[in-house]
């Protein structure tokens, strides 16, 4: 049995019912969420029985020079479906997002990794140390302007 992948529109409509201010739009595969509402959206996505996204596959940040996209891949093991939501951060300095550590603990190292390599800070994460590189390393190497 194959896992069903939610279209962006479907997920954004489901989110909009409960959190109308959180949804910014959607595209083919993903729903776009307001950066400040990521925490609330995460709790809703996990706890709402009709969504039931209890498994966080991965968190990714992508550097598009003017802005950063942060992508969350989610799966529901019970309902056998998965979905993607994204959020967009403008600027290069002092970027921060609410942490989803309290919602999915699996986000722990991935958020630290994004902070280390991309320079997006996650507020509310208990331990935002550098994970891969050593303390005192200059810059965030996965950014496009590094080197």
């Amino acid at each position, binding site marked *: 049995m194959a*896992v069903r992948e939610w279209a962006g529109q479907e997920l954004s409509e489901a989110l909009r019912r409960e959190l109308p201010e959180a949804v910014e739009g959607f595209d083919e*595969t993903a729903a776009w969420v307001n950066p400040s509402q990521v925490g609330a959206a995460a709790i809703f996505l996990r706890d709402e029985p009709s969504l039931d996204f209890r498994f966080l*596959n*991965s968190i990714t940040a*992508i550097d598009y020079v003017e802005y950063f996209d942060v992508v969350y891949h989610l799966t529901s093991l019970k309902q056998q479906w998965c979905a993607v939501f994204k959020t967009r951060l403008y600027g290069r300095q002092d970027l921060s997002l609410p942490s989803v550590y309290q919602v999915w603990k699996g*986000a722990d*190292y*991935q958020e630290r990794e994004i902070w280390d390599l991309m320079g997006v800070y996650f507020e509310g994460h208990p331990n935002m140390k550098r994970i*891969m590189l050593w303390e005192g390393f200059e810059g965030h190497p996965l950014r496009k302007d590094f080197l």
Partner: protein
Amino acid sequence: MTIRTEPMTVNVGPQHPSTHGVFRVRITFDGEDIVEVEPVFGYLHRGTEKLAEERNYVQVVTLTDRLDYTSSMINNQAYCIAVERLLGVEPPPRAKYLRTLTAELQRIAAHLIAVGFFVQELGAFGTPLMYAFRSRERILELFEMLCGARITVSYMRPGGVFADAPREFWPALDRFLEDFEVEFAEMEQLLLENEILMIRTRGVSPIPPEVAVNNSVSGPVLRASGVNWDWRKQDPYDAYDQVEFDVPVGSHWDNYDRFWVRIQEVHQSLRIIRQCIEQIEPGPARLELPLVLRPDPGREAYGRVEASKGELAFYLVSDGGIAPYRCKIRSPSLINLTIIEELLVGWKLADMIVSLGSIDINMGEVDR
């Protein structure tokens, strides 16, 4: 009379014989009990994701070999599936079967290492590990026959595999399967239901399913926690929808179950290999793609497979150039490590290394 103790913080690693690779962990002990854990990684951080942005789509295959170096074939497979989704192409059926077959062989090799080291960390240096490596050498020899290398295989390419298997591969595979039955039965007879092993591992560090899911644990560790979830079944890729196999699920969630699930998966892998040999048809083994691939700009693909350690996924974003714009590697080892606190805290010093061995991390993949 009570002995007064006070907590002590100990540094284990990064160069330590019984951590897998260059893993380092700081642990606070109270007597023999583990109170606090802080893993420290990055001793093998090679910047694979950054380097992947500088190479073209085919050249990245050589980097994926070195992620989880005990299962290079599966890494190749995951990456190639991601690129194929990015391009919107489908490999020919023969390539799919060859991929499934080699990935399963690699899974056996990886599980053999996991099992061998798990038992070694219990204190049995020698026989089980020797058994594991004996069979693994046979598999690596098959790989050498296929693609000329033992570990850094680079066998698969976007759109198939680099070349069909040579003729002498098939009888060699048959012979291997015959011998491996015997060799593995020998190992199983020694290890499974072994009293010493049972006493050391039964009931140690159980991970309940809710905790496992919340920590995004995947692969054999998740299945040992009683969650029936295998991407080969749930989202079949390559030829997995054509073959039959069972998913072993643990019932006690403990170290022994994590060990047991791996042993059972080897049997299922053998089943899959047999079916692949039955079903494989003649035909081309590679799509005619140009050497330098240029996917459409703005496309993204999330290609995932069930690797030997868990869900391995490549998230590729294309900007129309010859190199991936972003290549994120969702590595199972790193994310499985999230449960290290639940795994270790409250347990004894002697169980520490065993529990670490039971989640079977691989530093090449943790640090990338």
